């Protein structure tokens, strides 16, 4: 049987062997943690804490500031030192809460009052059989859970589709098509039952009639096996889709096309074709919040690349600076040249190692020349390899030339807004053109254009 897949795409070198057999480890708290107020797509949260205040793990540090926003909780018990402007990944600087984890100061001689509680703040756990859909969505909102797939979209919003968009499929995106990253793989192996709980909870939140599935690339046979066995053991209805290993199989549109043969129209969300997609990490965060009463305090991520001495899969406290994580993994070797947060295809190059790990951080890669393969740019020879590989059938070479010429209307007419910046085009380009850079520039300028009369 032909494996489920989509049109176009590429096969980047996987490098998964660096970490795929390494069990998840918990990284200890660093001396200082830096918690950004904006860890999600949408408006940053509003800070609620006072300078010098003692905060407990799980305590709300900042509240959600709108419908598309999410609250931020303290990843550790400790002293809130101050708010500062600091570097963040994928941006410049942002408001960050500096927390010094530790026990509260003992009450001074002669001072009144009970000793300060340093235990984690937990929410009331629900039971899987008893919890209602509304309770799940409210808990997800309260816990500030955001999508782990990259965009960090507030999950509660995704679980509340408008009534005119009926949902009949919820699929967990376990493709993990980005090279290097193995955290979803490890989570699937090590927390299979929790993941199934998470899937059932999401299904409940979306309504009893929704079909449940999980899409896994066929380069992870053990994970496919574990899930299939888990589904049988628990006697639940979850379809395990075995997908062809091809980048970007984990793009929402590609995943839905591969699993169900439905094509999300340009500019539309998956709900347009009756689908909701959630990530493995998101499903587990939902499970932990609903059944365990815990809010996200760590990010599960893969530290890898040929430039890091000890590649690992880690649970890192949110707010840990990148440098601390790299140090914990034995430091970087002399070949290290670029630090990338996320996967190599869509991740951001870090300009400062002071930038902290956030809720949606999926990987920290220390890459070398050997992996980057970045010779100088040469002339475009119109080979069309970018167009052949583009999973949404754009003509990247054409868009590059139009964007360089500032012809934004023309880039819009050629569909530039459909581009998801997956990097497939630039990966294939023998002329090493900075295609994604110009596609982003084009998209930004198209957004600023006056609306097209129709």
């Amino acid at each position, binding site marked *: 049987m032909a494996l489920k897949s989509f049109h176009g795409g*590429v096969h*980047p*070198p996987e490098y998964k062997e660096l970490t795929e057999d390494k069990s998840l480890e918990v990284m200890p708290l660093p001396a200082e943690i830096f918690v950004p107020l904006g860890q999600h797509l949408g408006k940053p949260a509003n800070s609620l804490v006072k300078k010098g205040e003692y905060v407990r793990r799980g305590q709300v540090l900042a509240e959600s500031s709108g419908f598309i926003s999410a609250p931020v909780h303290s990843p550790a018990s400790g002293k809130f030192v101050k708010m500062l402007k600091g*570097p963040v990944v994928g941006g410049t600087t942002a408001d960050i809460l500096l927390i010094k984890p530790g026990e509260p100061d003992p009450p001074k001689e002669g001072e009144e009052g009970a000793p300060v509680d340093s235990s984690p703040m937990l929410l009331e756990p629900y039971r899987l059989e008893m919890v209602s859909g509304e309770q799940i969505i409210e808990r997800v909102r309260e816990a500030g859970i955001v999508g782990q797939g990259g965009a960090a979209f507030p999950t509660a919003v995704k679980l509340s589709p408008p009534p005119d968009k009926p949902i009949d499929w919820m699929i967990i995106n376990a493709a993990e098509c980005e*090279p290097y990253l193995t955290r979803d793989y490890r989570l699937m192996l090590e927390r299979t039952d929790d993941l199934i709980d998470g899937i059932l909870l999401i299904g409940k939140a979306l309504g009893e009639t929704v079909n449940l599935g999980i899409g896994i690339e066929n380069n992870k046979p053990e994970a496919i096996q574990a899930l299939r066995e888990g589904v049988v053991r628990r006697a639940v209805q979850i379809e395990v889709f075995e997908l062809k290993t091809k980048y970007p199989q984990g793009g929402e549109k590609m995943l839905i096309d591969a699993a169900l043969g439905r094509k*999300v*129209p*340009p500019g*539309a969300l998956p709900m347009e074709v009756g689908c909701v997609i959630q990530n493995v990490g998101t499903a587990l965060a939902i499970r932990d919040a609903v059944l365990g009463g815990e809010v996200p305090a760590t990010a599960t991520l893969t530290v890898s690349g040929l*430039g890091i*001495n000890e590649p690992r899969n880690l649970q890192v406290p949110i707010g840990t600076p990148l*440098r601390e994580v790299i*140090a914990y993994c034995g*430091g*970087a*070797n*002399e070949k*290290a*040249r*670029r630090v*990338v947060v*996320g996967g*190599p*295809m*869509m991740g951001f*190059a870090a*300009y*400062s*190692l*002071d930038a902290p790990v956030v809720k949606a951080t999926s990987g920290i*890669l*220390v890459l070398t020349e050997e*992996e980057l*393969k970045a*010779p100088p740019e*040469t*002339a475009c*020879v*119109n*080979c069309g390899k970018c*167009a*052949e590989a583009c*999973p*949404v*059938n754009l*003509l990247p*070479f054409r868009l590059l030339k139009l964007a360089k010429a500032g012809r934004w209307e023309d880039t819009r007419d*050629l*569909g530039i807004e*459909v581009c998801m910046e997956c*990097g497939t085009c*630039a*990966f*294939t380009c*023998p*002329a*090493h053109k900075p295609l*994604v*850079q110009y596609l*982003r520039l084009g998209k930004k300028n198209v957004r600023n254009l006056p609306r097209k009369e129709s």
Partner: protein
Amino acid sequence: MADESSVVDGAKKGVALKAVSEGNLELVTSPHSHFGWTTSRIMWTVTIALLPSLGAGIFYFGPLALVPVIGAIVGAVGCEWVVGRINKKADTVPDGSAFLTGLLLGLILPPGFSPLHAVLGGVVAVGLGKAVFGGLGDNIFNPALVGRAFLQASFPAGMTDWSTAVTRVDAVSQATPLGLFKFGEPSQFLGDITTSKLLLGNVGGCIGETSSLAIIVGAAILLVTRVAHWRIMGSMLLGGVVFSGAFSLLGVGPGPLFDILSGGFLFGAVFMATDYVTSPNTTRGQYVFGAGIALLTILIRRFGGLPEGVMYSILLMNAAVPLINRVTRPRIFGATS
């Protein structure tokens, strides 16, 4: 650019990377991975794929057949270098594209062609075929074919003289099969040109075009290395079979096998029509392009004044590429129109 020392220092101190807030990490847009190809690698791969054809030419026409090939390469590379100096741009000679143009041109010249004229052809191929349009990637017409068209117009006698080379070819005189077919006696033609001779190259013709087998080996190299896709080659060959076959069913022409194995059909399909720059870059456009070349070639061979028509067919279809690209634009994912 990254200051690697900061990274190294950090590792030595056991605290990973030292402070980099001053911005000494490499900051580049994603993706942070690459297939590993370069333009020059593609050019040199095509060059290697041409070596069997060059070898076959030398085998059948003798070592002197190298002379016009070298002439064309000297002209093409020399012109590329001079244009680069005039434009004060980075030296583009090492990318291999000018060398390839010269080699391609050399291989579609008669074995005894004047080396000086070949140099001139190489200069015109790169100068008028490529440089005036803005260099590699911006030219409309296949540069090697522009060079050949120029030589055909300027030195028609030399371009159709197949007898001057020292040769192993044992066919009647050294006339090309297509020439024999067009201008000779059909009975004589049918007796002497066998399919096996066409396949091996034991017939008169251009240096690189004579051996179909060598071209097929070259095609295999291009396909296996994925430098060229089968779409253009395949549609041109299929088009040749269909159009030539249709005419031969009507009693016109020698039939598909002869048409494909003789003259420049195979060489054009494998090495000329597949030129990235001057062929469509949409999937459907590539089918249209290959089939269009085949149709024009067969029409010229059957009804034109020339025995051969591959060169003009490719040049004509080159001109149609922008139009083909436009009408064959792929439908965006999920779009209904």
